């Protein structure tokens, strides 16, 4: 039993990270119906930004976190402005392929400047751990949970209560109608990229600290898994992305615990296949009728 509880803690910390990345996928999809495959690489840039500011400029954790979120947010806006905006009314497949291209550009530009070898962080957070009854939880895991929860609450607040959030919801429901109502669609889309990418940046620094190992291709696999999480939760749905992320993290952990560690990736993709066959809209996705 204690092992089971401990595995839940492991699953939650992994899942929180997937959830943070999945949010960016889902927000971007919700608003412009684009699977932004470069999103995993924005997360990688977050990890590298944190590496640079902590190693070379000696930032402590919170300033580094803020810097990462700002840098990634701006990068997200830049990617949208340069790569996706000119293609906004092209067929979806064009934008999708562009997204894959952007992903490679980011990965190999980073590899060129930072080298392709693994990098490690200086110690930013204590790795002391606490014994809570039968389970053991480390300071770093607590930070991951808390930061994920705070950021998600903040996101809910922005989307539900602010003017910009209302504009985002409006654009996501019907872009043309939103435009007629006087909403600046371009700015709203930029803002969505800003928020989504900033969350990925936060995930980047958290992963960097937790695993203490980053490399230019680190975004690929977590990016894909977060995408699966977003699909599982219902792509376009924000609470869905959170639930999906936690579920994927938990599924992966439980497969290792009670099956074989070699199936950890297989289970994630198996979930994707099952969701697409059984309930393509995902857990909380809306069943929209195709507009003709």
């Amino acid at each position: 039993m204690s092992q089971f509880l401990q595995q839940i803690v492991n699953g939650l910390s992994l899942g929180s990270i997937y959830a943070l990345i999945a949010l960016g996928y889902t927000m971007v999809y919700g608003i412009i119906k684009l699977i932004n495959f470069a999103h995993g690489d924005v997360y990688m840039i977050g990890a590298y930004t944190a590496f640079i500011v902590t190693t070379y400029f000696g930032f402590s954790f919170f300033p580094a976190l803020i810097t990462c979120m700002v840098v990634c947010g701006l990068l997200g806006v830049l990617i949208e402005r340069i790569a996706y905006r000119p293609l906004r009314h092209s067929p979806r497949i064009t934008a999708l392929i562009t997204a894959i291209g952007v992903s490679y550009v980011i990965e190999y530009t980073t590899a060129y400047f930072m080298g392709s070898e693994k990098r490690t962080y200086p110690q930013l957070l204590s790795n002391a751990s606490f014994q809570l009854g039968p389970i053991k939880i480390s300071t770093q895991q607590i930070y991951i949970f808390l930061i994920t929860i705070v950021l998600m609450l903040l996101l809910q607040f922005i989307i539900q209560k602010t003017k910009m959030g209302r504009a985002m919801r409006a654009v996501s429901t019907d872009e043309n109608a939103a435009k007629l109502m006087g909403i600046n669609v371009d700015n709203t889309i930029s803002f969505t990229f800003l928020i989504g990418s900033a969350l990925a940046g936060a995930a980047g620094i958290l992963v960097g600290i937790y695993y203490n190992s980053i490399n230019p291709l680190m975004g690929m696999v977590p990016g894909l898994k977060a995408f699966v999480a977003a699909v599982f939760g219902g792509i376009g749905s924000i609470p869905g992305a959170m639930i999906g992320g936690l579920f994927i993290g938990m599924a992966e952990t439980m497969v290792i615990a009670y099956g074989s560690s070699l199936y950890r990736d297989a289970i994630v993709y198996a979930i994707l296949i099952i969701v697409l066959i059984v309930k393509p809209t995902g857990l909380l996705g809306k069943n929209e009728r195709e507009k003709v």
Partner: protein
Amino acid sequence: MKGNMWKVLAAGTMALTMLAGCSSSSTGKEETGKKLNEGDTVKIGLNFELSGDVSSYGQAERNAAQLAIEQYNERSDTKFKAEGVEVDDKGDAAESTTQAIKLIEEDGVAAIVGPATSGASIATYEVATQNNTPVISPSATQVNAMMNGETPYEYAWRVCFEDSYQGAAMAIYSADTLKCKKAAIINETSDYGQGLANQFETTFKEHGGEVVAHEQYNAGDTDFASMLTKIKDSGFDVLYIAGYYSEAGLIIKQAREDGIDCPIVGADGFESEKLVQLAGKENLNEVWYTTAYTTVNASDELNAFIDAYTKKYDQAPNMFSALAYDATNLVLDQLEATGATGEELNEAIKKANFEGITGSFTFDEKTHTPVKSVMVVNQVDGVQTEATEVKVD
């Protein structure tokens, strides 16, 4: 080392290799070596992973090989001048074959040193043997890497021990010296990881131990928390990690933070300054691994090499550089002694009694692998303080 994922590529390479074989025989290139005249410049091919995933190994070896050649040329008592011809195999087996053909046919090298990894090395053995050009792999540790079926490739050699040998050495050390009874094994799903893990398990059992848990991971994994939580209660008193530093470092870190404080042992995949950065130096206690190279109790020759290397490249050498230095010197010594290339040079290598910085050795003619002892080194706060020689019976 790192003979993993290249199997598929190696298969593809076979086709290339056969083509190469055809071309060399059709052009009638059947010479079996030539005599050298005093003062001749002898070309030595340096085929290394200068770019790609394992470029850190290849670059370290290239540097050391060039250093050996430079030192040879600086000596006044030598008969020939040596020249290193560098090529980049990009860590790719097919590319490695292509580069070996180029070195042999276009540059006319007397021998090839490299590549660093097993997959890329094996891909050159066929062409080398067909063209009577010895190839010496500094660190191709994969089990049976030198074998072409039942017999070894005639012109292929290595100066490192085999993975299974390391696995056996560590099992003996764990059972007899550390007095461990129950082992948990975590290995990478590669030839390297599986070769080590299987041999460790077999030998550990022979020495009275038992294996109570066995887990595997893929190269590139970063999260080991659930795996460690799973095996934690199995009651092991030694943890064998058969993999490379990039994952082993993380496993050690996560295991120590998870309260696993028994000895953690491993193989030469741990050999990297990155291990300390990844695991954290406070976690690197009660950690041992097998290696061919240690600076603890270094000989004068080894110290001289370390000084020269550090002076030239502004960084400390590692196991890979030491092995490549030995491999290059082995070739240079035999060239100097025989004054011939081809068959005669190869015969001389076969009979060599070589004294290198990674130990003295002769070749086992059945496997083309040196007979040398394995070093087990410890870690105290991430620093080696002791080295013990282990012999495998």
